[in-house]
């Protein structure tokens, strides 16, 4: 097993070396990812140490795998496999850039994160992932200003982790994960903040608005899926072993719920093909964070009633993380396929994927978006049912403030799910199922693209249909039970005695027998069918007469105009409405402030007079020295 781990890292590194030959490079990444998957599957039941190297007496680099990291490695590596395959075809659009270099090394960074047993190796993996994700982002050679924001947030996350581990080292003289059990609340807050920032939780999502539309699709998919998954992994890693802090848990819950609501809200108003799924990422990660917060909260109270809830909440967080990674990878791949085939950016321009681009990308968009809008029996439905079911059981908590916050986050999450459904219908209706206006996409080689999309599509459906298997694989077989005539592993229960249940497997059977088979029978018997175009006042619709995607969501933007800060623009050549993400305000303000300071500093200090500059350097040195002395 250990050989597969090194093989995987080896393939990623070789792939990075071959970045000039991008197809080969991606194929190597594919092989590496398959190795990672095998490692993950093996490590599910066999935890062991992989590597250990002492740097100093207290600090060493330790790599190892246990059940949790194996779980996340499986989830992540499946997304990597799909993305690597997808990128083989996709690379033709960016053949002359170092996109594949960033791809391979970001993957290896994530491998390090997942296998890290101590703070030092985690930070190394974290930095590698952040920097090479940034490299992927600026691969087009433009938009550096927007990409730097990503880097700034990435480094903020690293800084939080660094501070957390530094305090840990100060208090316990060790930075291994085992030492975390002895850490205090401050460490918990810094570490979890570091992970939360990586999950793009509001208000740390500021970098995405400008850059998401500009980067390559596989980079967007990596950033949205596996990279945020690392944040989830970090939280899942530290929360069970760190000491309990109830108020911080409540902050996490409310932050997650707010983030979910905000992501849903902004996704509704998004009109760019890439921005809508990006905000959906915020929404999903918000729900994951809420579930994790509940898990931590329920775990802290020694009430047998809450034992089950803690386990259920943890399962909910993992299921949503899994569903988000799979569905989002599929969504980004299908949308990227369509977007590149049409060479467009907005939802309106990418209409008619089914007839214009292909059936597989269209199906991919439909299935993944349906999964996000909680359509049974897909895996997204299970995740969103689980989070709501968790929140329903908030009455079990002993104190009123927890109940209140839980109820509040329940409201926000429910709104978020509704809003994201609205947004996803917009996405499906316009891109996948829209009318193509006779446009045909440019011809691109799409064998690998179609293959990876089809595989991912089947996986998203299968994960829902074969939910008992997935739940067992994730390590929560206790949640499965039987009810009435449905036999034992096919019912997922949110409590014992039973509070709420679902059985996607049964839903699938019912759907097939009562809907799909009758529809097929009905369709096959229809002989007298006349196909006509849609009725539009007696004339066929012209392209400029189609209802636009912006118009679809305009009514919501108008009703919630105080939240969206909806503005109407009426000039001669440009009419429309503009919405604003006010959560970006602090970041924009900070950017401007730093810019001003920088400009001012440059004017005062770097004005060509050498003595001023030397004084400045000297002063800085003294300050650093004094601070260093004080700390020592």
């Amino acid at each position: 097993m250990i050989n597969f781990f090194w093989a995987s890292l080896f393939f990623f590194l070789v792939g990075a070396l071959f970045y000039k030959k991008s197809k080969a490079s991606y194929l190597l990444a594919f092989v590496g990812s398959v190795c990672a998957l095998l490692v993950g599957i093996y490590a599910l039941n066999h935890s062991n140490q992989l590597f250990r190297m002492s740097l100093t007496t207290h600090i060493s680099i330790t790599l190892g795998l246990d059940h949790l990291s194996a779980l996340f490695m499986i989830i992540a590596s499946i997304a990597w496999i799909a993305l690597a395959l997808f990128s083989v075809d996709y690379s033709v659009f960016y053949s002359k850039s170092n996109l594949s270099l960033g791809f391979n090394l970001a993957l290896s960074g994530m491998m390090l994160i997942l296998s890290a047993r101590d703070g030092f190796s985690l930070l190394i993996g974290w930095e590698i992932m952040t920097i090479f994700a940034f490299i992927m982002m600026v691969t087009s050679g433009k938009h550096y200003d927007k990409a730097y924001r990503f880097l700034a947030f990435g480094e903020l996350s690293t800084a939080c982790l660094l501070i957390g581990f530094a305090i840990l080292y100060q208090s316990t003289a060790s930075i291994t994960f085992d030492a975390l059990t002895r850490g205090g609340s401050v460490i918990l807050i810094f570490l979890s903040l570091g992970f939360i920032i990586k999950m793009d939780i509001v208000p740390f999502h500021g970098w995405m608005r400008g850059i998401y539309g500009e980067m390559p699709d596989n980079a967007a998919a990596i950033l949205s899926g596996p990279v945020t998954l690392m944040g989830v992994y970090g939280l899942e890693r530290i929360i069970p072993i760190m000491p309990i802090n109830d108020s911080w848990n409540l902050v996490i819950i409310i932050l997650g719920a707010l983030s979910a609501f905000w992501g849903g809200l902004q996704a509704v108003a998004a009109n760019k093909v890439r921005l809508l799924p990006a905000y959906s990422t915020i929404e999903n990660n918000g729900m994951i964070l809420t579930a994790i917060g509940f898990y931590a909260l329920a775990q802290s109270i020694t009430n047998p009633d809450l034992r089950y809830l803690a386990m259920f909440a943890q399962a909910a967080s993992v299921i949503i993380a899994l569903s988000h990674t799979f569905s989002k990878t599929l969504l980004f791949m299908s949308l990227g396929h369509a977007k590149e085939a049409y060479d467009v950016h907005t939802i309106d321009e990418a209409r008619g994927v089914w007839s214009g681009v292909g059936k597989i990308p269209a199906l991919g968009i439909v299935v993944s978006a349906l999964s996000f809008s909680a359509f049974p029996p897909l895996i997204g439905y299970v995740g969103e049912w689980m989070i709501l079911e968790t929140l329903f059981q908030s009455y079990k908590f002993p104190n009123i403030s927890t109940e209140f916050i839980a109820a509040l986050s329940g409201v926000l999450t429910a709104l978020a799910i509704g809003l994201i459904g609205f947004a996803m219908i917009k996405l499906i209706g316009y891109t996948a199922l829209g009318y193509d206006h006779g446009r045909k996409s440019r011809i691109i080689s799409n064998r690998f693209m179609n293959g990876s999309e089809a595989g991912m599509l089947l996986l998203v459906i299968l994960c829902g249909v074969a939910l008992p298997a997935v739940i067992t694989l994730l390590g929560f077989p206790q949640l499965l039970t039987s009810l009435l005539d449905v036999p034992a592993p096919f019912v997922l229960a949110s409590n014992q005695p039973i509070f709420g249940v679902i059985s996607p497997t049964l839903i699938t059977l019912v759907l097939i027998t009562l809907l799909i088979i009758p529809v097929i029978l009905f369709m096959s018997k229809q002989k007298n069918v006349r196909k006509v175009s849609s009725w539009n006042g007696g004339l066929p619709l012209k392209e400029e007469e189609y209802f636009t995607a912006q118009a679809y969501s305009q009514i919501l933007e108008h009703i919630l105009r105080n939240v969206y800060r909806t503005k109407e623009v009426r000039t001669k050549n440009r009419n429309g409405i503009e919405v604003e993400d006010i959560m970006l305000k602090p970041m924009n303000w900070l950017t401007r402030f730093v810019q001003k300071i920088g400009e001012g500093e440059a004017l005062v200090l770097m004005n060509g007079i050498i003595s001023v500059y030397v004084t400045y350097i000297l002063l800085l040195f003294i300050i650093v020295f004094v601070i260093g002395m004080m700390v020592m």
Partner: protein
Amino acid sequence: MRLLAGVIETDGNEQLLIIEDGVAQLFFVESEEQRKEFAYYSLLKDRQLHLRNESVSGPGVFRFRYGPVTAGVREAGCFNLYTFGEKILYAGIDLSWKHRRVENAMINKTPQQAVNLAESICSNFALSHSIAFTRAIENALDMKVDMGVQNWRNILLEAERIYNHLHVIAKLASAAAQKVLSSHLSSLFEEALRLNEILTGSRYLMGINDVGGLHHIPSLEDMQHAITTYALISKRFERLFVHSVNNANYMDRLHASGTLTADQAIAMGLSGPSLRACGVKDDLNATISHLIQLPVITQNEGDALARMEVRAEELVNSCEYIIDHLKISDAWNFNSDEKIEPFNQSGEGCGIANSPSGAIAYYVAVNDGLITHAQAFTPSYVGMCAAAFSLDDHIFTDFPFIFDSFGVHFSDAAR
């Protein structure tokens, strides 16, 4: 006030048809100043079929085409509404779908034959059209029309006003989902149409008016029946109207929808109830000599509600007008068999009539008893423009209230 009703081009000369103090006159254009006096000069001159034919662009903005086949506005016509969702940014109207070239068909017909064509421009304004047309012919051929004929024409014009106003108000009530009100109003509308049939033999007052006279006049019993029925209609309408204005729901839908200021209305060349609803007193009532003067009803708000109120008051006044006239035998008693013969066989002239929705004007040129040039200027043409203008910046839900309140018709506007 001076109202430019139409612009006529004949053999390279341009004439303006101007209504002043109720008298329509033709003026040859001698200077640019004359044209500049009327902001709507080019609109009347061009007689376009695509009104307000501009486009609006922007992210998410699209053209919402309503028509040419719709169940809401049943007539064949098309609205081009530019929108980014709920709000109408710019409204244009395409009249070409109902352009039947009626005026062209009048050429080389005798005036008597052409009356039918004038009536078929817009059958619910059939009498206004035929009166404006026959007045133009009478003007051109220098015919003096009997006072009795004139009185009958006035009485029947008011009958036309009654059923048209009832129709508009019933439509507004139906658009506001006031089912009881709209059902009662449409029953009154049907009563008015039946009464028309009793009085003239046609539910739309077609075929009664002719050049120089009337085909027939109603019998005494029919007049007696009309007096009682119009009294009943007026009474029932007043009760319904009082009841309806107490309904906040209904008033809310009409209030502040499609507001026009007096200046805007004048600059667009509006006439009739739409203009009077903006607080401007026009002199269309003076187009005829009345035995009993009709008051000019105005409102100040200029919105759909004001237009509805003007129509409601006019309706009641018209009922009284007819009743009063039918009670005085001097008003209707004349010998309809005496036909006036034309003095000339050639000439040109104009005529106007105060239709339910504004001034209808005709210009005709006759040579040797055959029409050589005919032009009809209808209130719906400028009304359509005004309706489209007032649709701007309203939401789609306001559409029926604004459009219906102008009482305009595609067949009238497209000719």
